[in-house]
């Protein structure tokens, strides 16, 4: 709102009166018929597109059929999330910006298909994100995490944020590393549209043995995260560089 005049087409400013459904609402809400239909529709659409993208997947035997699991993947394209959400044998939840709740187009669709809205910004944003992720796992669901925190623009694999380690050590949920290839050619990080051709591949790796990490302190979190990044690099074939992809949005987590 500027000078009392609403600008047509713009999203309203973020405010604390926005009603952001909590994790339980979203997960349980997904079972409602209209939401199941929405999910099925998105799934069909994505699977159709995935054929044009010549998507192949290996390592499915490493993905537990049920129970909590963290899928940790590299991230080079907007297309990564739909692939992981709709092309695997089980539903995978992702965290998304709370601003999606402001637009009528996405307010119902995104939660229906598996996106949990999070208030972004600062420490509270980071905290809510991790707490929400924890909530998803406590419901026995699979959650997708991009440890790099953002899409890699140079195609290399970057240092992971320790939130992944925090989440795994706190929840006790297994981490399954995932390497995604070919999506940056389908829709590069700065492109608005995806192509209708491609050569995509998802490689799912073995669960990370968590018994190696005594304690849940920062040291353990960093250790877990680094080891996951190594496994992802083996699966995605990317070169690893030990610095963040960009100044992180996720600030410190208060434990």
């Amino acid at each position, binding site marked *: 709102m500027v000078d009392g005049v609403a600008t047509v087409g713009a999203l309203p400013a973020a405010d604390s009166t926005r009603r952001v459904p909590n994790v339980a609402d979203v997960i349980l809400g997904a079972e409602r018929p209209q939401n199941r239909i929405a999910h099925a529709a998105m799934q069909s659409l994505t699977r159709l597109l995935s054929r044009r993208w010549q998507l192949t997947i290996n390592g499915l035997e490493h993905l537990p059929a049920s129970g909590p699991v963290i899928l940790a993947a590299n991230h080079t394209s907007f297309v990564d999330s739909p692939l992981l959400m709709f092309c695997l044998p089980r539903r995978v939840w992702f965290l998304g910006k709370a601003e999606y709740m402001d637009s009528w187009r996405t307010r119902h669709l995104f939660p229906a298909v598996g996106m949990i809205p999070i208030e972004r910004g600062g420490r509270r944003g980071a905290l809510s994100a991790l707490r929400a992720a924890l909530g998803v796992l406590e419901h026995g669901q699979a959650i997708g995490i991009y440890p790099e925190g953002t899409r890699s623009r140079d195609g290399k694999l970057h240092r992971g944020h*320790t939130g992944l380690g925090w989440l795994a050590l706190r929840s006790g949920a297994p981490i399954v590393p995932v390497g995604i290839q070919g999506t940056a050619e389908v829709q590069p990080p700065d492109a608005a549209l995806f192509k209708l051709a491609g050569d995509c591949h998802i490689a799912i790796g073995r669960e990370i043995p968590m018994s*190696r990490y*005594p304690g849940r*302190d*920062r*040291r353990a*979190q*960093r250790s877990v995260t*680094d*080891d996951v*990044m*190594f*496994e992802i*690099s*083996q699966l995605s074939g990317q*070169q*690893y*560089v*030990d*610095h*963040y992809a960009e100044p*992180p949005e996720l600030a*410190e987590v*208060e*434990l």
Partner: protein
Amino acid sequence: MDSDPIAGHPATAPALFEGERTITYGELRDIVGRTAGGLTGGGVGPGDRVAVVSDNELTFVTGVLAALSVGATACPLPASSPDEVLVTRLADVEPTAVLVSPAATELGVACRDHDLVEAGLVGHPAGSPSSDLPTIEAASPMPAVPVDLTAPAVILHTSGIIGAPRAAVLTHHNLRAAQDRMIAYGAGLDASAVGFGALPFNHVMGLNVLLLTHLRVGASLVLQARWNPVSALELVERHRVTSIVAVPPMWSSWADVAGEASGAMQSVTFARTGASTLHPDVADAVYDSFGIELAQGYGLTETAGTVTMEPAARRHPGSVGRPLPGVELRLVEDGEPVQPGDRGEIWVRTDSVFEGYLDDPVATAEVLLADGWCRTGDVGIQDDDGTLYLVGRSKDLINVSGFNVAPVEVESVLQQHESVSAAVVVGEPDPVSGERVAAFVTLVPGATVAPEALIEHCRGRLSGYKVPSSVRVVDRLPLTAIGKRVRAQLR
């Protein structure tokens, strides 16, 4: 401000125990004073350097105190070093006088005969048995001269683990500031304390944390010139030692010889370790043997001693604790403080940070920054409450395909294998990954194990990039006198 650290202590109070002999503060002041008189008579004065070549014996203490007393800079060197090392260090320091212990008489003679020392003043401190060298003393003791606290007091060679050892210059103020921190820590360091002096005095931990701090508070100190764990335990019991400052190899061999539930250290109220990584097993073994909770500290020559302290190393494996009051500490990467939980180079700022390296402004400028911060060259990681964990020397970290490997972590895993006695891990160049992890191990006597089995052992416990590409069994691993791994010799 005078330079006499032992002024004011009662003359009859015991200062040092050496063998069967007790030396009181009064006797010590007398010997030091007469040696000071001898030095002054020989032309030594403020600004000069006095090398003191001695192991942990009375001559070390009297030599260093006498040097300080005349306003000179003391340069302690161990008598048990190889001659070539001693000669190089003496050449670095260019002393005006050299005081040697009886054990270092030959070296002293060589110095004198080969004109290694300008003033030609080479001899023993007062109170030493006669030999081919003169005793440097005056007939009556000379009082300590007033000294500016910002003047150099001591020159200590750093361990030189990553390159050549450097001569670090510490002022009176540096030494005292670090001593103040130890005294304030609450370790019971007062005149009633009895310390144990086997830790080499020519290293900052032995010199400032142990020797000079105990003398400053008027405590007494049991000297052991040659480390022997069995006789050390007897000494600790006999003198009812209350405070022990030692390094992990010493603690480890103590626990080995004592076995379970030994009462030898009942009198000890403060026991600490430092200088190299304490393996959790050693902390446990010390507790099982003596009922003692080891404190683990972190410090450098360049900070004149301890900057962080973990009071209960056994309960917090790997922790070196939080910065002591008066110490600022930050973790830095590419010139910026790191994100919480990330690794970074440890920078320290406190009033015990040294003046610089002797005659080496370039090396000094790399380490001492304009705003008083000192780069330690150590990499660490900090918990949210400020607890510091050491990852390793920055130059020791191995870069495998962009991923950092801390040698200590791999060494620790190798040492968990029943056949392995000790391990040292270094990086070797690799055309594909940049570096690869190479391990050298010594085996427990009588044990045999194939290198492949050790690699498998690591594979089960470490992420792929940390697993050694090769493991070589050797007879001996290069270690310094205080147990630090000299990785450079293996690269």
